[in-house]
């Protein structure tokens, strides 16, 4: 059973979701930056940078302006009840996107790679990016993440085995490539970063798996014990690299590591790393029985 949609209402609800995602951070993210700030030594650039980030989050919330000017690729993961028209949802999301761009909540970020022309309204081929998944529940859940170009540029993919890194086709090999990826990124992805890891799949699903991890709560624990252990180990060891906020040095290089898997063909063993900047903008909208929840 599809839920009944009033297009104008849903458009304005999605617009509100975009405003929330662009101008506010989730409580788990704010908390983790506050915690990180407490752990940095007094008088260091690391401590003062983290303090400025928190002030910036407050200012963005108060002024209703984007936390970061790079409002990024808009990534939607939409879960919908059976029978819902995804084409209809797509069009509504596009209209809300145009409106948010007109009102300077989003920066016009869709550039045609051949002509170099900016479309001016954030619409274009695969823009915004939407991933639709039907589920058995009677609710519509729209997750939105704004992912800036800086952190996307330092994201990457490895193919195991990797002889330079002594990385075999197992979890220890995964550990090694993640350390290498985060060390290579330095401060370029706007550290402290949040690391989504996708193990397995083909090239495309591996990246998708990595990006899906970024929708998880920073405080959760992986239901798979081996992966939970790896997440904890990587979190601790990556923070021993000393890269620190913005790459100025310090104890906080990452705020979290989240790992997911996808089955692979025997010949391939991909590990994808989705690096997300500290401006970890993700929020969701759920509609069920006429009730609307923003999270």
């Amino acid at each position, binding site marked *: 059973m599809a839920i009944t949609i009033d297009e104008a209402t849903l458009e304005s609800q999605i617009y509100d979701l975009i405003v929330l995602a662009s101008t506010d951070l989730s409580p788990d993210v704010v908390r983790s930056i506050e915690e990180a700030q407490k752990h940095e030594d007094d008088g260091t650039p690391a401590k003062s940078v983290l303090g*400025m980030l928190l002030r910036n989050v407050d200012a963005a919330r108060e002024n209703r302006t984007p936390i970061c*000017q790079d*409002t990024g690729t808009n990534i939607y993961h939409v879960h919908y009840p059976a029978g819902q028209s995804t084409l209809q949802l797509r069009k509504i999301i596009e209209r809300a996107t145009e409106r948010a761009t007109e009102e300077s909540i989003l920066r016009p970020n869709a550039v045609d790679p051949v002509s170099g022309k900016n479309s001016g309204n954030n619409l274009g081929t695969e823009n915004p990016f939407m991933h639709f998944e039907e589920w058995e529940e009677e609710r519509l859940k729209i997750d939105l993440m704004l992912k800036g170009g*800086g952190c996307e540029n330092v994201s990457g993919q490895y193919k195991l085995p990797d002889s330079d890194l002594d*990385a075999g086709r197992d979890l220890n090999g995964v550990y090694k490539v993640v350390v290498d990826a985060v060390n290579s990124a330095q401060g370029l992805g706007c550290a402290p970063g949040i690391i989504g890891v996708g193990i397995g799949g083909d090239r495309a699903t591996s990246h998708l798996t990595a990006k899906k991890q970024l929708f998880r709560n920073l405080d959760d624990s992986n239901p798979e014990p081996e992966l939970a252990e790896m997440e904890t180990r990587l979190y601790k060891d990556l923070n021993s690299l000393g890269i620190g906020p*913005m*790459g*100025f040095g310090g104890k906080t290089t990452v705020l979290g590591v989240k790992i997911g898997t996808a089955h692979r063909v025997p010949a391939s063993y991909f590990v994808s790393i989705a690096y997300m900047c500290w401006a970890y903008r993700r929020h969701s909208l759920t509609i069920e029985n006429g009730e609307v929840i923003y999270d």
Partner: protein
Amino acid sequence: MTELRLPTSEEVVRKLKVGDEVHIFGTMITARDAAHKFLIEERPDFIRPYLENSLIYHCGPVVKKKNGTWSFVAAGPTTSIREEPYEGPVMKEYNVRGVIGKGGMGDKTLEALHDQGGVYLHAIGGLASLLAQSVKEVKEVFMLEEFGVPEAMWVIEVENFPAVVTMDSHRKSIHTEVKSKSTEQAQRLIHPVT
């Protein structure tokens, strides 16, 4: 804390050292990917007075137009390393005194800062709301139609714009120092001695 007033001079900039925190006052101009390519390939004369003894800000802002006047809504730095092939030649050609961006730049730019008397200033990535408040006025915009909002060249008046010197004219770079230490640690983690 050092105040850096624009336009500045080679003498002032050569005194700046890695680790110095500066607050910037005056007129500077944004330029990023499309603009750097344009500056090198087209060598436009109209832009020279704006770059002379001033700073280039690697920034693609969110802007608003109200009653015919532009303002900056969000304006943090973008990643600088993409301009590595262009920056040295741009600084020399237009007598630029420095660059504001994030993430640092490479050896070619470090060498240009040394030769030219220039400095790399690191602004805080993602500090868009606070930095936009430092932009007091948008004086002009060039190449808006051709490049679009993020890549146009915005001439801005800033006040109290905070940044840290992370590369100076004495061939020092915080970025190389941090990377060399973190790489040692990464090697220990990746290739543990058993």
